[in-house]
């Protein structure tokens, strides 16, 4: 008799945890709300810091999930706790008796149109970081027309009381620097400006990205938040910020403005969490049992968390979190169901 593990959310965390748990011999059921697995990773083009292909990364994650039962276009309809397990009814009618539940519901991107002063959805030349990744994947976007002056706005929807999110979204600064360099590669004659409040480039090789952006691509970093965007008669944008280093307000005419939309707790994830009465902290993300040593356990026994469901994370963080959750689930299930038998699936993999 094997234990069942239900994994809610088919993004990178869900995929990685699925493959690890499958390998450890558990019966893994992975459900995904949308039509395709991959989460947000499926929409990106290149990943920082080295520019590896998002497609290839996703392909390698998907390559390990043989044997995992997954259902797309499926959501949790109802879930209730029995003595040692969870009785879950899915929207496709299937009932799962889950001995452990792993929530990898991820994040939502902040809706940039809510920052009215930036005019996203009103002015033609204002796009978001997600739109830009889509442009790099598809090759065309009517809003991007040989821009000569490009601006990046950091912290859109993050670190902003008015937008309802006080916290930092962790990955947008590195994304902005990456995208700025990619735009300079695509349009070598363009002037590129990054408007930031603080630059958060903490990870390995991130500082090198910053240095390269300045030294090799001539990107100008202006410390000052963009506060007002308006449209000139010729369709270009007039952008107002302060150069806080020079202590003077500035204005610039730009042909394209890219808003770094931040991370928000997933609304659909929250819905499932509420069914389980999972506590949520002030920032909207799920609470964990203890932030340092038990970051993958929720306060409820048998419910685990991994990935951006517990706060903004980079992709390496997410994958590490997912693997840690798999180990924690293994430990928990071996403890609670000592008579269950699980045999590891051997995976031949060259180092």
């Amino acid at each position, binding site marked *: 008799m094997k234990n069942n593990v239900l994994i809610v959310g088919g993004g990178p965390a869900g995929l990685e945890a699925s493959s690890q748990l499958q390998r450890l011999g558990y019966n893994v059921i992975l459900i995904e709300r949308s039509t395709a697995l991959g989460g947000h990773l499926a929409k990106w083009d290149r990943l920082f810091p080295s520019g590896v292909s998002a497609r290839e990364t996703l392909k390698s994650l998907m390559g390990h999930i043989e044997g995992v039962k997954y259902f797309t276009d499926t959501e949790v309809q109802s879930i209730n706790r029995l003595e040692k397990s969870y009785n879950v009814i899915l929207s496709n009618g299937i009932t799962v008796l889950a001995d452990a539940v792993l929530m990898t519901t991820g994040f939502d991107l902040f809706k940039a149109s809510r920052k009215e002063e930036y005019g996203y959805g009103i002015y033609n030349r204002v796009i978001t970081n997600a739109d830009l990744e889509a442009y790099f994947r598809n090759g065309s976007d009517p809003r991007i027309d040989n821009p000569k002056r490009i601006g990046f706005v950091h912290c859109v929807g993050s670190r902003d009381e008015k937008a309802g999110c006080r916290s930092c979204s962790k990955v947008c600064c590195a994304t902005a620097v990456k995208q700025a360099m990619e735009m300079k590669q695509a349009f070598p004659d363009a002037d590129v400006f990054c408007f930031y409040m603080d630059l958060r480039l903490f990870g390995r090789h991130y500082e090198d990205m910053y240095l390269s952006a300045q030294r090799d691509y001539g990107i100008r970093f202006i410390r000052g938040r963009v506060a007002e965007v*308006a449209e000139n*008669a010729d369709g270009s944008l007039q952008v107002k910020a302060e150069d806080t280093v020079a202590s003077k307000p500035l204005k610039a005419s730009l042909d394209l403005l890219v808003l770094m939309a931040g991370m928000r707790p997933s609304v659909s994830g929250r819905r499932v969490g509420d069914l389980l009465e999972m506590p949520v902290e002030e920032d909207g993300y799920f609470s964990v049992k203890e932030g340092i040593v038990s970051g993958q356990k929720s306060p409820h026994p048998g419910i685990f968390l991994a990935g951006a469901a517990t706060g903004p994370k980079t992709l390496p963080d997410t994958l590490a979190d997912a693997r840690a959750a798999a180990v924690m689930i293994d430990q928990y299930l071996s403890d609670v169901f000592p008579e269950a038998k699980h045999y590891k699936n051997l995976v031949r993999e060259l180092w």
Partner: protein
Amino acid sequence: MIYEGKQKIWADYQKEIPDDHYFYVRSCIRQSFFPASEATFLDITRNRLGKDIFETEHHTTCGGIAYHSDTIPQETVMTIIARQFALMAKNGYENYVCSCITSFGLYCETMETWREFPELEAKIRENLWKTCKLDFAKPKYLIHASDLIYKYRNLIAKQAVHKLVNVHTGQPLKVVEHIGCHYSKMFPSKGVGGAEYPYVLVGMIEAWGGEIVDYPERRHCCGFGFRQYFIKGNRGYSLSNTHKKFESMEPFHPDFIITNCPGCPYFMDRWQYVIAESTGKTYGQDGHGIPVLTYEEVAGLVMGYDPWDLGLQTHQVGVEPLLDKMGIEYDPEKKYQGKGGKDIGRPEPCACLK
């Protein structure tokens, strides 16, 4: 410009505006700058739209000028406002309409402060009783007079004899709309359309056939304020702010500017004269300026009132080019004739501004 994006935001910031029975309070200085605006407003709402709009000769200023110039404390201004509310209650009304934008901002501020600090409201109630033996009731609806014209813009359009269209070319007139700062910048939810893309004047212009111009410095303050321009030496600061707006709207070649504040049209009209006479620069065609009108004047023109009855002869920037574009008939001889054909005198001609 993606118009649907703006419409989404306007849908978010809707405001409840009552249907009838209004208590109207006038503005301190508006009647001096734009003499017929308030009279036109009352005529349109009472006689053309058939609404009950009441004003009493006992009402006073809201105290805004003194408050914003730091000469009276907040409690004094709140007591003055409480007295205004008491007059409203005494006359049996609960819908408060004010003519001035700064007043509107101050009333909103007062109501919000009272909501957050009920003990202050109790204190003001006591103050009012001690000074005037009056008891006040907070208005159920607090709106600005432009909200009212906005609400009835379609009724006005039905009764309109002119449209905001250039009769010679058939093109809609290009209109710059300027909202007073205190309308929505302080409390975005209290203004129609919110703070970034206010809709109250845009709605009027669209209903009457015009086309709105969105230019980069649209949100910028005209520089009115209060305390900084009382002293002549500081006036350059206000002048420069209005100048910045003009420089920004010039490439769009607007036909006129519509505003809903007392101070803004005053500044935008008079400063064009100062800029023209001190630097020689004009912003209209052929040395003319851009006419600046209040929303009541625009409503009046559209409904067929005589321009000189609307007080347009007191404007510094001549409105004749606009009247010609709209195809409105006017008698140039009657421009400087008061009641009974009396000659009210002529202003000195300008050197640069026509």
